[in-house]
């Protein structure tokens, strides 16, 4: 479909938004909401301003697809199709996404609640994009994988060792989380947000709380902000160290995963001593946080972070200077800046492919308003760049933690959160995997609609372009260098 034809098919408001500037805006998310017999489709764009730009279109039955103009819209539109039955005219790949083995979208009740058919047995085998030709071999992997990892399916088409096509089939861990949240008391629903993606549960909790606070017009006290910031940077540090170790493990550089798993556990135990939990569950609540560690606890945490940070910087640097690691990381799994833009990639993946995108700097929130974080950016887009980005960001997190813990704001840690908040609003935080967005619509303190746009949902479609053209044996390493969450994507 030509650009003009695609533009002509769009609703007028959306077309105006798209054409407003010479440079089209970055697509943040598209999501739907049932309103009577029609569907309200929300488009969130980033134009570099302080606020995202939201365009809303109400349609019944059919709407023009944005995919020919913005490939990043593909999964978003397919999800809306599956959930609300809306047809996206001109979508190049309109197959079901959430339940690919089921040709028709699941039954949608008018109020937007989902009813899954009773025979909801999963299976693989529904149509994949066919890749044919002499010597083409199809390799199916998953949903049950070999390690301690989440489920998902990868369908490779290979020619010899070379991957010539890769299709992802995810949403095995789809738990209907957004629908589950609808109708809940908003102030008490943080535990659900914490269970969207367990290894960065604090980022999810904070994003959720910030969206609520924004709607209710509440600003948590500075000390609460500092504590959330400390927790989120610790989360980033632990994740980056763990990912880096596992990445080295994937190329047979065994000492690094052993060391990294120890450093990660050092940090989890330091968290436990600091605030009574390893992963900061139950800490962030609307209006603030639930704990206030004293000076000694802060000093102990600062020591643990400094020690882990020092060791990681030294040993990680050595790992990356090792020729056998370099031979595997250098030039493997390249995500070009153009592909990163097309798929609107976010987080460390985008920053390793030249995109200067970091919410902590672009739209500072909470503790980052008081103290900025050094932004990392590399251009190569290969596995090496994604490994280096994690080291740079770990160092920046260590510095942020040192400075924040040393300059502790006074005051309380929790303000009263008003009952019966109403309205709509979004909040976004930079989770360890990148931009994480919560969009909320509240009525009398209850959730009407909650949309969760995880960085993994955004980044998964950017994985195949980095894998195709390489050898299949590099896949585990490339996949690990993205290290995306399945549950965060599938929700």
């Amino acid at each position, binding site marked *: 479909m030509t650009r003009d034809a695609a533009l002509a098919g769009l609703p007028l408001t959306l077309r105006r938004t798209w054409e407003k500037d010479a440079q089209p805006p970055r697509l943040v998310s598209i999501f739907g909401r049932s309103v009577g017999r029609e569907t309200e489709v929300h488009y969130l764009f980033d134009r570099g301003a302080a606020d995202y730009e939201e365009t809303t279109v109400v349609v019944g039955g059919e709407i023009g697809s944005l995919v020919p103009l913005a490939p990043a819209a593909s999964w978003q539109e397919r999800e809306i199709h599956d959930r609300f039955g809306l047809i996206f005219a001109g979508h190049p790949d309109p197959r079901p996404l*959430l*339940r690919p083995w089921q040709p028709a979208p699941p039954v949608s009740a008018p109020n937007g*609640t*989902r009813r*899954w058919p009773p025979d*909801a*047995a*999963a*299976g693989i085998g529904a149509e994949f994009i066919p890749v044919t030709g002499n010597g083409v071999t199809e390799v199916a992997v998953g*949903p*049950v994988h*070999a*390690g*301690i*990892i*989440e*489920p998902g399916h990868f369908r490779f088409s290979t020619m010899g060792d070379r991957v010539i096509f890769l299709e992802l089939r995810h*949403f*095995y*861990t*789809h*738990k*209907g*989380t957004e*629908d*589950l949240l609808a109708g809940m008391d908003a102030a*008490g629903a943080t*535990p*659900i947000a914490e*269970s*969207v*993606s*367990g*290894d960065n549960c604090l980022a999810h909790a904070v994003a959720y709380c910030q969206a609520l606070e924004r709607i209710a017009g509440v600003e948590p006290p500075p000390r609460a902000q500092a504590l959330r910031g400390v927790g989120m940077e610790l989360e980033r540090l632990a994740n980056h160290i763990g990912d880096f170790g596992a990445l080295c493990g994937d190329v047979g550089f065994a*000492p*690094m995963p*052993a*060391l990294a*798993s*120890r450093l*990660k*556990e050092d940090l989890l*135990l330091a968290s*436990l001593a600091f605030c*009574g*939990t*390893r*992963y900061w*569950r*139950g800490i962030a609540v609307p209006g603030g946080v*639930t704990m206030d560690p004293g000076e000694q606890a802060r000093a102990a945490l600062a020591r643990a972070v400094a020690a882990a940070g020092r060791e990681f910087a030294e*040993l990680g640097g*050595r790992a990356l*200077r*090792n020729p*056998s690691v370099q031979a595997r990381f250098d030039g493997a799994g390249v995500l070009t800046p153009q592909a990163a833009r097309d798929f609107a990639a976010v987080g460390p993946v985008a920053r390793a492919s030249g995109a200067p995108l970091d919410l902590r700097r672009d739209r500072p929130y909470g503790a980052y308003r008081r103290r900025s974080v050094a932004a990392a950016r590399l251009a190569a887009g290969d596995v090496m760049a994604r490994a280096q980005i994690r080291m740079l960001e770990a160092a920046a997190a260590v510095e942020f933690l040192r400075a924040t813990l040393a300059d502790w704001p006074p005051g309380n840690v929790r303000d009263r959160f008003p009952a019966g908040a109403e309205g709509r609003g979004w909040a976004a935080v930079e989770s360890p995997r990148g931009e994480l967005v919560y969009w909320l619509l509240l009525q009398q303190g209850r959730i009407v609609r909650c949309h969760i746009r995880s960085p993994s949902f955004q980044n998964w479609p950017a994985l195949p372009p980095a894998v195709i053209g390489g050898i299949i044996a590099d896949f585990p390493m490339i996949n690990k260098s993205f290290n995306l*969450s*399945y*549950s*965060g994507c599938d929700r």
Partner: protein
Amino acid sequence: MMGDLLLRTLRSPSRLVPLDALRCTNAGGSRMPQVLGGRLNADLADRLAAICPTEAMRRGSDSGGRWFELDYGECIGCGRCAAAAPEAVLPAVHLEACGVRREALVHRWSVDTGKEIPPQTAEPPRLDRWLGRAVNIRQLDAGSCNGCEAEIAALTNPYYDLERWGAHFVASPKHADLLLVTGPVTRNMAEAVRQTYAALPAPKLVVAVGACGCSGGVFDASPAVAGGVDQVIPVDAYIPGCPPTPAMLLTGLAAVLQRRLGRRGAGRVSAEAVKARSATAGAGSVASRANPQSS
């Protein structure tokens, strides 16, 4: 350079947590509650049942009078109960209910007398003495949030080192004695879970992990979720928690395999022994043997 790194690895002091310590404080950091039955009264029971987001705390009455229940299998450790009633609910340090049958996760008290009412069936989990010391574990994610996986993966780090009992994770269900299943089983994973179970050779031990694995957890009400693991395949034992701590996972696995942590010589290391060993390792006993020039 590689040699330096290797040297560093070998020289760093041992982090192995003594087994007795693991067992005694297995629930530390899990935020699971401990109820002081004697402090219960009707008003408090009502209040706790009302604030618990997962209905892990509930009350009712029967011929024996009013009762109050805490189901660890549903508790996500949100901490609301302990915050609301610190006089009657404390954060648990030790949790016996790991690697037990489903009924044993439910604790019930008489609200009138404050006494605990023992569960109806106290049958221990299945015996599999012939497993001996080694056990092959296959971890299966049936739809979890990845929180339980993070803790299961931690079992292999130098602090917990699951392999000291000869237990290790294998890549295929066909090689496994035990299936360690996390997550609420999503509708989308249900068939894959059944097929994985079918591929498991006898004795087909299954342990459900986490609030979601035990009961469906916070996702139980979702139509996209089939429920806890036992809604789809037979389960032998349950390890609660959101997520369970590595120590809870270890004590739970040991209970299933009928192995008493710290009661067998080979696995038992005292704190002093650890200290002594780390001191020697750190002081260069390894360094003196290695030749930096050769790397």
